[in-house]
């Protein structure tokens, strides 16, 4: 890869978030570059979802700095997040089953003339763009006019992901995109994740399935009990090692080691 100025698209530092007495995140750091897939892993209650929702603007953070392409920004609400170019694909509730693929891709942002809610939608333009986008991402569906209800789980997830990149988004957050999917469908979605990366997006993926994580991720950030454990190069960190970080059986780089992800720090962690 040609090295441009390696400034992360999104960089977060010292992120803390409490819900009442519960400290969901404390002093967490996280970053994602363009052309990269970062996996966010951790056991239940590690704070993955809270972190994703903080990025998405659903839970504004209590403390910490957020930088977008090196510039410090504030994320107070979902509008701030999507305004920066961050799209979130939630595990559930994101699509309208009764509407077709085109309608779902453009939901709430239909191509239409001026005139507010009574403006007439340009179905031809929307359908054309939908087909272009889905072809570009190699999403396989019977027809763009099929209602979402008749698609498989993998196809639905693909449509949800495609929707996130239909607009000028640079970072895509995927919350458990392969949960409840079969083997073939999982592969479909993971291929799509890699295609997003090739298109220059920064992709953040939450997954419980380490196999999936190793298939697509370049770097893996581990959280445990709301704290940052470390970020590891996916090619050099071992599976058992990762599980060790997640469960706390092995202390991670955050325990005083070099915070940059590297094979050295990762393997050191396992020896100690």
């Amino acid at each position: 890869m040609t090295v441009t100025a390696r400034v992360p698209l999104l960089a977060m530092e010292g992120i803390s978030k409490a819900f009442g007495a519960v400290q969901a995140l404390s002093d967490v750091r996280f970053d994602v570059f363009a052309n990269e897939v970062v996996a966010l892993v951790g056991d239940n209650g590690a704070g993955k979802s809270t972190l994703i929702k903080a990025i998405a603007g659903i839970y504004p953070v209590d403390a910490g700095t957020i930088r977008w392409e090196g510039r410090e920004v504030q994320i107070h609400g979902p509008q701030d997040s999507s305004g920066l170019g961050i799209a979130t694909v939630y595990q559930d509730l994101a699509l309208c089953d009764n509407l077709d693929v085109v309608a779902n891709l453009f939901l709430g942002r239909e191509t239409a003339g001026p005139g507010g809610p009574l403006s007439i939608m340009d179905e031809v333009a929307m359908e054309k763009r939908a087909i272009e986008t889905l072809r570009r991402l190699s999403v396989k569906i019977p027809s763009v006019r099929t209602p979402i209800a008749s698609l498989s789980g993998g196809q639905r997830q693909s449509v949800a992901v495609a929707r996130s990149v239909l607009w000028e988004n640079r970072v895509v957050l995927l919350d458990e995109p392969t949960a409840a999917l079969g083997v073939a469908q999982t592969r479909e979605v993971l291929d799509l994740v890699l295609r997003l990366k090739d298109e220059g997006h920064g992709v953040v993926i939450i997954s419980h399935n380490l196999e999936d994580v190793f298939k697509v991720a370049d770097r893996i950030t581990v959280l445990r009990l709301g704290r940052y454990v470390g970020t590891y190069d996916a090619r050099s960190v071992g599976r058992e090692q990762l599980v060790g970080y997640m469960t706390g059986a092995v202390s991670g780089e955050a325990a005083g080691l070099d915070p940059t992800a590297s094979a050295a720090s990762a393997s050191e962690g396992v020896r100690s």
Partner: protein
Amino acid sequence: MSTMPNDPRLIGEEPGVAGALGAWRRRLSNGDIGQLPVVIGLVVIWGILLIASNGKFFLPINLVNLTMQMAAIGTIAVGVVFVLLLGEIDLTVGVVSGLSAAVMAVLNVKFGLPGPVAVLGGLGVGLLIGLFQGNWITRFGIPSFVVTLAGQIAWTGALLFVIGANGTINLRDPFIVGFQGTFFTGIVAYLIAGLLVGYVGLTGWLNRRRRLAAGLNAEPASLLLIRVAAIGLFVGIAVTVLNVDRGVPLSLVCFLVIVVVLDYVVRRTRFGRMVFAVGGNAEAARRAGIPVNRVRIVVFALAGTLAAFGGVLAASRLLAVEQSTGTAGELLNAIAAAVIGGTSLFGGRGTVWAALLGILVIQSISNGMDLLSFGTAVKFMITGAVLLTAVSIDALARRGRAAR
């Protein structure tokens, strides 16, 4: 699955007639049976009535009566379709039609206001009630069933209050009575029919041309031609038969205009898309930035206004407003019409045309039973059975999809 693995194109749509048939098959297997059962049902019912009534059902005088009976409850049913699309219910549409007609009658007869002003007053009552109920439902998060159940009781009281002790207000105002007393005959009636067919043909053709120009699959010219020809034939025969008697009543024209305009709103505008989205998955709609509650309020206001106009049409036909106006089965027939026409009770699926097809079924049964002098008892039982059948077909189609 119909996609072939070797197909270089990933989106497996085929052009032409084969593609159109494939899309239709896909919709059917998906549980989206649309208007098919109601059209079949209508043909069956008409066939039975043709034989049972010795052709009397299809006499011009009876068909003109049928169209006049349809318009009022059909208009109310259009509002019900909108509410059902949201996955909500409005139990007040019957009594609101009566209350609005009563207010109109009082304004006109007791206060001496001119007909058009009185009609606007009646429509205003429907609009305000709809706005009020929509706001109450969304503000406090109470199910629409409960709010409109309370409303049904309360507005019935208001209706009795407005009508007063006499119990009946007779209408003579030419404007109000004119909705059902004005008929288009001869060339004018054909012109109206031509406009309707022309609208269907022109929008279909323009849509096809735009899609082809953009390189998309379009409805095959042959299918479009068949569709327009079939509608043209049906409308042409209908107008010819109606012309033998009094002609096409203004009330039917009003109803058809409402159906055509609101069908366009539902299918082509952003607002229509919002209604479907809220009915399909309100949470997804909210996350997509759709003002879910505002959409709900607007729909309840629309349903109230349409109910009011249905009440005006009913009053125009009966030349009077009584204590029982709007509370004698109007609600149940309007909901039944929307559902029989193919609108799902579970939200997010249906068309405005469902109101037209559904009311055609219900009024055909009702009218036919009158012709056969069966009386109200049999009429209710048969209408109930048809409604149950319609809902069961919808449920079975849905289950078929879920089991896929």
